[in-house]
């Protein structure tokens, strides 16, 4: 098998160009999925028998929460690849993931709080699920802070990669918190072994939103990655060629 395409992914100029070419292929489908998912979820889906129309915040809350975990796993994987194979581009990917993941985590926490007030009767409780998700936000912020605090890029890469890898332990804790312990947060409706606990008319928009958010994440990541590569390679000669071209 020919691995040159794979090895080229470690080359900053190649990745810089590739990211630019790929971005629209993720951004437009993301926009379509999110518009269709929002239309399906906010307009077409029937109201819930208990929560009425209030349940519709699910269409933003659940995809944000899933993305907060998925982005973290992407970030930690990229960081591990960067650490083991000493690939700078992988560290750049990890560094680009962090603010996106932090934003999804923040969105999940805020929409959850807005949902919790009318449904549970409280914005915030120190419940295992809520607390572990808050820890995830702090992990993202800690990762970003650690990077920002170390002047030398290579040292920042290695130190922050270790933090990202250590933080992986929180991901299964978040996912299983509602089954391991008594929790105020309900059990998963979709990400479970049994059939999803909602009808197709409610489920389909949710899956569209999840797909849309995933594509949106990739599009954002590609844009951020270009910026990150530019900043890291600012002294390199290929940048001058790109800029003058």
């Amino acid at each position, binding site marked *: 098998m020919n691995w040159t395409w794979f090895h080229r992914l470690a080359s900053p100029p190649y990745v810089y160009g590739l990211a630019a070419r790929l971005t629209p292929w993720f951004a437009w489908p993301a926009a379509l999925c999110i518009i269709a998912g929002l239309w399906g979820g906010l307009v077409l889906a*029937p109201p819930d028998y208990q929560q*009425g129309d209030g349940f519709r915040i699910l269409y933003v809350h659940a995809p944000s929460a899933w993305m907060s975990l998925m982005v973290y796993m992407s970030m930690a994987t990229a960081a591990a690849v960067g650490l*083991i194979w*000493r690939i700078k581009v992988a560290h750049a990917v990890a560094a680009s993931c962090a603010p996106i993941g932090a934003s999804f985590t923040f969105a999940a926490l805020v929409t959850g709080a807005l949902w919790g007030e009318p*449904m549970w009767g409280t914005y915030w409780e120190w*419940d295992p699920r809520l607390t572990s998700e808050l820890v995830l936000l702090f992990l993202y912020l800690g990762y970003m802070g650690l990077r920002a605090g170390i002047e030398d890029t290579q040292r920042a890469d290695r130190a922050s990669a270790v933090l990202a890898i250590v933080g*992986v332990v929180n991901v299964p804790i978040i996912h299983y918190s509602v089954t391991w312990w008594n929790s105020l947060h*309900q059990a998963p*409706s979709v990400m479970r072994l049994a059939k999803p606990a909602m009808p197709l008319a*409610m489920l389909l928009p949710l899956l569209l939103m999840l797909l849309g958010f995933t594509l949106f994440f990739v599009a954002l990541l590609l844009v951020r990655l270009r910026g990150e590569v530019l900043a890291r390679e600012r002294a390199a000669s290929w940048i001058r060629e790109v800029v003058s071209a």
Partner: protein
Amino acid sequence: MTPRRRRLVLVLGIVAGVSIAGALALSAFRQNVTFFFDPTQVAAGKVPNGERFRLGGMVKEGSLQRAPGSLEVHFVVTDFNRDVTVSYDKVLPDLFREGAGVVAHGRLRTDGTFVADEVLAKHDEKYMPPEVARSLKRRHGDSRADAAVPATAGSTEGAAAAPPGPPARTDKAASAAGS
């Protein structure tokens, strides 16, 4: 061993070590992580004596009593094994239903009544349109396979048990669906 392999082993070692440490810490803190105690734990005396704690379970069908002329309510929280009577004098959350999950924060009085100063409704993971909930209720036996779990079994019936509970949201939702 090449340096690359050494780093791979190091990373896997970090992940394994942190996972083991995390698992040990969490199993040691098991009691403290518990968000609420169920009535069986309360009956077994596992609750810190005289301290505030959270009591969780299902609101027993037909147990909600309102004192006339005040907000004071009494209801029974059950885990289908033991029961605890709860008294509460503030506004109940929207999703509070007989047969649905609830978490109450307060203290146990010496006579065994739990005096709550905060009551939270715990909703389950099921979502369905009101028409479906009504037809399930009409057929009564909730025949869906996943309803066998006691913690969630009562919820569909609880939604429709309107009279003693607060005005159920079902009606509003149903009219919205019909329009």
